[in-house]
């Protein structure tokens, strides 16, 4: 059956990504203890390498790595010895995910709305305003937008707190900062999709039935226009919930983005591999879910279909 097959493909994909990550990490010259080797005695470094199985031949490392992965154990971190990769994800992911989910809700809701309104006012003032906004939203980087938001809402008007995390008020500004670009992207996509749909013959049919504009737009227009937008919700969702370093840094959000960047600077192999595999798993699972849900949204795609 399709879902089972699709599920197997998903597992396979995760395995391929995990393996690729592993071998790429192994191909990079140098290891986490390269800088220590200059200062520490040889024996100490050898001991440390042994602790992380780095003295084993690569195939053995690989098997151990996969075995742990299946047990959902992403291994210990090298730099912060007391913490495992699982700990790091557990401590950083909730904040990132909260922020990401809020951002995607904001981005989807207002993005779709903006796109629809723009399309319905094609080439009129509202359309142009919306698209200028979208272009700004896409092109202004978050490290400029974030301070701007802080300046306006926290400093000038003092209506929202910044630089800590805890209450929902704290999450408003980072959510806005994170949502702006995807919101603009969604708006542009939805607009062009909506423009195309509103030119379709079935819209003329709906019009010829004497339905209200509201009904034509909603049940015949939006319903169809949204389909192509759904297909990029997956990657968007993942990129938002996996945290963005810049925004988390600026707003002091204790998210996972910081750990990921740190781990790269520190050559903390297990953390790099662990977070990479974790992120890709989320991506692959999300794509799987979207693919399945697509088949409910679009009746032309059958769950029983072979291939693809």
């Amino acid at each position, binding site marked *: 059956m399709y879902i089972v097959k699709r599920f197997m493909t998903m597992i396979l994909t995760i395995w391929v990504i995990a393996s690729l990550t592993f071998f790429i990490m192994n191909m990079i010259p140098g290891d986490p203890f390269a800088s220590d080797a200059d200062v520490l005695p040889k024996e100490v470094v050898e001991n440390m390498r042994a602790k992380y199985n780095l003295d084993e031949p690569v195939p053995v490392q690989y098997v151990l790595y996969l075995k742990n992965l299946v047990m959902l154990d992403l291994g210990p971190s090298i730099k912060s010895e007391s913490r495992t990769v699982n700990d790091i994800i557990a401590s950083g992911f909730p904040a990132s995910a909260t922020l990401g989910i809020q951002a995607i809700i904001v981005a989807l809701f207002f993005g779709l709305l903006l796109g629809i309104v723009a399309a319905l006012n094609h080439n009129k003032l509202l359309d142009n305003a919306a698209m200028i906004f979208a272009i700004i939203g896409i092109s202004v980087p978050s490290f400029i937008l974030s301070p701007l938001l802080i300046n306006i809402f926290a400093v000038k008007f003092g209506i929202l707190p910044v630089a800590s995390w805890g209450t929902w008020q704290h999450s408003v500004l980072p959510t806005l900062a994170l949502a702006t670009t995807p919101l603009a992207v969604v708006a542009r996509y939805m607009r062009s999709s909506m423009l195309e749909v509103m030119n379709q013959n*079935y819209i003329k*049919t*709906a019009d*010829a*039935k*004497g339905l209200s504009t509201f009904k034509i737009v909603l049940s015949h227009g939006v319903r*169809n226009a949204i389909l192509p937008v759904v297909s990029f919700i997956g990657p968007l969702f993942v990129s938002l919930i996996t945290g963005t370093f810049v925004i988390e840094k600026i707003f002091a959000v204790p998210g996972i983005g910081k750990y990921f960047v740190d781990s790269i600077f520190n050559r903390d192999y297990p953390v790099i591999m662990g977070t990479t595999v974790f992120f890709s798993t989320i991506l692959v699972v999300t794509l799987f879910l979207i693919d399945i849900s697509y088949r409910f949204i679009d009746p*032309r795609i059958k769950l029983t279909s072979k291939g693809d």
Partner: protein
Amino acid sequence: MNHLLEVNNLEINFKTYGGEVKAVRDVSFHVDKGEVVAIVGESGSGKSVTVQSIMGLIPTPPGVIKGGSIKFQGKELLRASKREMRKVKGSKIGMIFQDPMTSLNPTMIVGKQIAEGLITHQKLSKQEAKKKAIEMIKQVGIPNPEERYNQFPHEFSGGMRQRVMIAIALACNPELLIADEPTTALDVTIQAQVLELMKKLQKDTQTAIILITHDLGVVAETAQRVMVMYGGIMVESATVFDLFENPKHPYTWGLLNSIPNLEGTEKKQLIPIEGSPPDLFSPPKGCPFAPRCKYAMDICLEEMPGDYQIDESHSARCWLNDSRAPKVEMPFTLEKEKTVTVGGESID
């Protein structure tokens, strides 16, 4: 006498990057209650634009209704508000489009697409509308109506989809049905079935029909009157009998002459009308057909002919009908046994 539909001096342009297209020029006609009127003419002659303007379906922009009037049951539609138009559309006038493959919403079950209009116009409850919709599906000859109600358009063949379109158009018992090439996109055998169905429903309901078609055979079989369009103008209007027996416009002659004889033993070639359709951006100041017309006189290139009234129900826009013009007869005779079947674009 009050006509069901009366169109007078309709002018419709389209603003495009290349300039303004004069799609419909000074078109006048009427349709009476229960009557079947056909519109024929080659591609781009303005047939669809004419009928879509009745339903207020011309997108503005780029379309501009330059002038004229469209009276339906005595009411001016061109000056009706959106709200008033919605009460007419789908309720008093139904419409079937050319391409059944793209005319139904792909993500909505067909039953709902039929029921929608009923809920809007007849204020039926969902349950009642569903019952009526299933009845309509049955009426247009689709088997298993209950099951079909819940299916999506892609589960229907082209012919079946066109039947669904007919069900949608007729659901609210309209006074007028506009069918814009309802069978052009279908297989020949399916064409016949769908036409048969339309004829039967027309008999049962006494709905007036405006039928756009390329097929003079269909015209002969279904319509009482026929209008010929060319280059945005109505070049001839007559009863079907008169049009075949006594056509008064050289373009109509060309149309009739291009009907292939399928039954004849000797293979008669389909005779196309020579030349190409007029440039609608800057139409010639005279008759649009003059550049292709074998009988064109000097005046034809200079001045648009008036609408010559041949008799009470027959008129033609051609200078040859002027009393000062030389007498010209149709250069051939229609064989009585000739099968009047012209496939789609072949007239052009």
